[in-house]
């Protein structure tokens, strides 16, 4: 059974139809890339899945449950996690506290007030920082990090609660080539743990890490399939050539 199924999503902003009946299916432990020209609806589709936008019509099912009208917090509690397109780490807090904030989100109020989970979550916070090569800067404020490192921190924050589905909106935006390469390395190990939906403009990057791709154009799905299938798709090439 698919972990995530979005069916016939339509999203209209005023006179603009950002999504026009888009579908998306993601299986468990699948890395799924969303690609398409600028304005094709990738980020809007991601937002509709994450709950940042409520679709005008259509359904989103996650783990067999209809979450079309659920709030972002409810979706997060169901096992979905999002990294925003614009980096949104909490700059005044330390790296460690940024991770702890993500980890403790689903703790009960009494356990937060009496800090009962502080010790339990400590090792997990340190492990996440280690995994994303930020452990030696754990006590520094997030504002002290470079842009690329802030992106890694945010991916670490999104991954910390051990979601079933991780949504990454342009995780390598503004990164150097070397940082992109390292980001690819950092994402590979999570394949055993969760599914991934990734919006990305860097086609080389997305080709290297994704199992399947969905290509959007003008709010609709143009094609969907394996990386090899998409690479050989005449319709996809036509769209990209037309826009080039």
């Amino acid at each position, binding site marked *: 059974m698919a972990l995530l199924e979005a069916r016939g999503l339509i999203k209209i902003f005023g006179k603009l139809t950002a999504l026009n009946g888009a579908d998306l299916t993601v299986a468990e432990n699948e890395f799924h890339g969303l690609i398409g020209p600028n304005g094709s609806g990738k980020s809007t589709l991601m937002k509709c899945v994450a709950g940042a936008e409520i679709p005008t019509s259509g359904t989103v099912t996650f783990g067999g449950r209809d979450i079309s009208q659920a709030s972002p917090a409810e979706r997060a509690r169901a096992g979905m996690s999002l990294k925003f397109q614009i980096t949104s780490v909490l700059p005044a*807090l330390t790296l460690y*506290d940024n991770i702890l904030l993500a980890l403790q989100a689903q703790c009960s109020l009494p356990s937060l007030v009496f*800090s009962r989970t502080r010790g339990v979550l400590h090792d*997990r916070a340190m492990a996440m920082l280690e995994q994303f090569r930020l452990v030696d800067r754990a006590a520094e404020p997030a504002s002290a990090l470079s842009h690329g490192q802030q992106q890694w921190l945010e991916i670490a924050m999104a991954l910390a609660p051990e979601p079933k589905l991780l949504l990454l909106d342009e995780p390598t935006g503004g990164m150097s080539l070397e940082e992109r390469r390292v980001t690819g390395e950092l994402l590979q190990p999570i394949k055993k743990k969760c599914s991934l939906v990734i919006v990305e403009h860097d086609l080389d990057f997305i080709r290297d890490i994704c199992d399947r791709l969905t290509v959007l154009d003008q709010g609709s799905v143009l094609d969907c399939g394996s990386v090899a299938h998409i690479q050989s798709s005449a319709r996809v090439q036509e769209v990209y050539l037309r826009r080039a």
Partner: protein
Amino acid sequence: MTETTPTTSLPLPLRVGRQRRWQVLPIIEIVVLAIAVLLPFVLKDYLTIYATRVLILCLFALSFDLVWGYAGIMSFGQAVFFGTAGYGVALIARDLGVTSILLVLPAGLLIGFAFALLLGGFLLLGRHPSSVIFVSLGTLTGSYAADRVARGWYYLGGQNGIPSIPPMSLGSYDITEGPVYYYLTLGILLAVYLLCRFLVRSQFGLALAGLRENEQRIAFFGYQVQRLKAIIFSFAGAVAGLAGSLYAFHEGFVWPNMLGVVISTQVVLYVLFGGSGTLIGAVIGTVAIEAVSFWLSNSYQDIWPIILGVLLLLVILFRPAGLISLILSERERVGNFGRLPEEGDRGSS
């Protein structure tokens, strides 16, 4: 490219272990407490009474610092909870003859809590997070409306308020203004301060910091931000209620200004002047404004409000983080919430 060099295999010492240094905040807190304890020994009686009033206002300022400084909720109507609790205990004393400290202070606390829960429920518990402007104007309107209701309601004494409230008592002992009331207030302020400090440095405090820094972001982690806001708003309402009931018995009367926009704005200024999000900044700001007002009103009777206004503007313009930022770093103000990683303390992955 050194930033991207993998470090996992290198036995690098952690910088975090070496970054520990002297904490300024506890030193400030201890100095302020020591001064407060010794003050009645050096002050004349009438100044001890004035200092008691200032301590009560410090308690009130703590309630605003909790909502604005820690949770980012701009409450321009904090006086609603201060004033309703003041009126509530005044009515309990006048109409029921109950003045026991063991009953009236918890009653004031509960009244503040209940009104904050009511107003907070209306303003904060919608499906979508409320904007700062909506909450500011909503609380401001609440304060204005409460003031008007009190002025127009005969049972509450109208414009004159409720005079001659009997003193608070403990058994057969009346607690009247002077050193006893001063130390009682100081004890309550200290207890509430420590409770607030415990709360804002707990994991709950980290959630509040997330709320203040980026409310939308933490909603995507699964935090129920509206509920968090309502909880801290109600807790702060209880603190304001406690301050209001102490104020009512100390002054011996309550009047509509206790609920109104002027005192609501005053508490905002106390916290901004001292420095929000530190607790001690609220105390220092209240003491500084009240002390300067007292001195100026004696020395420059005609123009003191203008001088005070200019002084407040200068501090807010040139030290937006308040007086406390002269001695407290931004890093220490924000603080740490988890167990600080120690040298050699690494994750297991």
